[in-house]
């Protein structure tokens, strides 16, 4: 487990080698560290986590150079070795943002689940020129499903541009992607979705652009731009289903554009996950 390499020595030793199904490692100041498996947290060491442990993890992840990841930290995360580390703590006041001190870390462990969502593929492929949204609550497995859809569509002949802002889709640590995203995928990492989508559009002639988590207005504008150019979109969003999605003004606007005609809703957790297709109508 790559995430284990970032942990302090005693925590690393406390983890069972080859531990399966771990989705996250959680470190909270003053609490025992836990593993998140199948939606449940269980402690893996009795030693309570200290502020110094969090700093050690962050120092290792950033190569003792937190200033090089200030932009990411302002967004509440840090990418390292193909992992995403969610951070929480006391933020600096005013416009400066950034963290004054850290209280919790969530080391998210990206997984490659080959073969998931096989039954969705024909519908998603048919809609490749349009827009498909993958929806679930946080931690529902949107990114894992998106990754698998990209790989299958790409291997199936679709030229895909992947905007991987947070290094989660490709889990890329260097020039080569960590996960197999298919033979016809061009992966752009470390750039905002809006900027990356335009860059791919201009330079790589994608048939479909895939991106994780549409959350900001700029993302929405990029989606509109892409659709206007006749490029298909495969994206994820935080929402249990399209009806709840409409509760958020930005998502309501997104749905009203009519760009997305298909939604894949993920229900349940862990091995009990189910995928449900829903047609979206404006």
């Amino acid at each position, binding site marked *: 487990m790559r995430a284990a390499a970032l*942990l302090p020595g005693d925590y690393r030793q406390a983890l069972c080698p080859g531990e399966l199904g771990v989705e996250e490692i959680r470190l909270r100041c003053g609490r025992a560290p836990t593993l998140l498996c199948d939606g449940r947290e269980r402690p893996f060491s009795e030693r309570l986590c200290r502020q*110094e442990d969090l700093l050690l993890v962050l*120092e290792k992840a950033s190569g*003792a*150079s*937190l*200033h090089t990841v200030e932009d990411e930290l302002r967004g509440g995360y840090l990418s390292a070795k193909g992992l995403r580390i969610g951070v929480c703590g006391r933020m600096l006041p005013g416009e400066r943002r950034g963290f004054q001190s850290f209280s919790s870390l969530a080391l998210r462990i990206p997984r490659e689940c080959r073969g998931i969502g096989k039954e969705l593929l024909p519908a998603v492929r048919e809609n490749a020129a349009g827009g498909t949204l993958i929806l679930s609550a946080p931690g529902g497995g949107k990114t894992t499903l998106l990754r698998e859809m990209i790989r299958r569509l790409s291997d199936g002949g679709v030229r895909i541009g992947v905007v991987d802002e947070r290094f989660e889709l490709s889990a890329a640590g260097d020039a080569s992607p960590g996960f197999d995203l298919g033979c016809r995928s061009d992966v752009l990492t470390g750039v905002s979705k809006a900027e990356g989508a335009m860059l791919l559009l201009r330079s790589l002639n994608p048939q479909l652009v895939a991106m994780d988590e549409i959350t900001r207005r700029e993302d929405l504008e990029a989606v509109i731009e892409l659709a206007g150019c006749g490029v298909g979109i495969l994206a994820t969003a935080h929402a249990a289903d399209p009806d709840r999605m409409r509760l958020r003004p930005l998502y309501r606007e997104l749905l009203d554009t009519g760009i997305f005609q298909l939604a894949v809703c993920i229900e349940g957790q862990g091995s009990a996950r189910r995928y449900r297709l829903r047609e979206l109508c404006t």
Partner: protein
Amino acid sequence: MRTAAALLVLLGSLLGGAVWQRGQRRRIVCLSGLSRALSRLEAELTGKNASLPALAALLAGEEGAAGAFFSALSEMIPELGERSFRQLWCEAMEGELCALNDSEICAVRELGAVLGRYPLDMQLASLSRCRKLLDDHLEQARRKLPDDARLVWGLSAACGLFLLIILL
């Protein structure tokens, strides 16, 4: 025999003065090298937003104690995660920057606690503060060295002569 012993005492006193002067010269060279290295570190951090391990490797090429310090730090970088950057910084200091006085060591140690851990502007402010202190001390040491050297040589010679007179 008494004459030989007295001469040895005189020689010892003079040697004490020479050792002091050599220590001061080493301190000046160390301060000067470290100030130059920190100035380069500041410029690299400001311009390129580079990572500290890369900068430590770059500064390992500096001459003298500063180069040796950054070289030692660079070699310890793989231990990150087991020990904090601050600990590695302090450990590297112990071996290589022993020519500095207490307040200078304290300032450099404080700098190690800030580097890589806080926002860039705070790191740069801390670097600038530390460099200013080192520069002030360097200037002071350079200015005072001739006078202090004369004083120490005079004192050690006088002390040696005094012992010589007593013994003879």
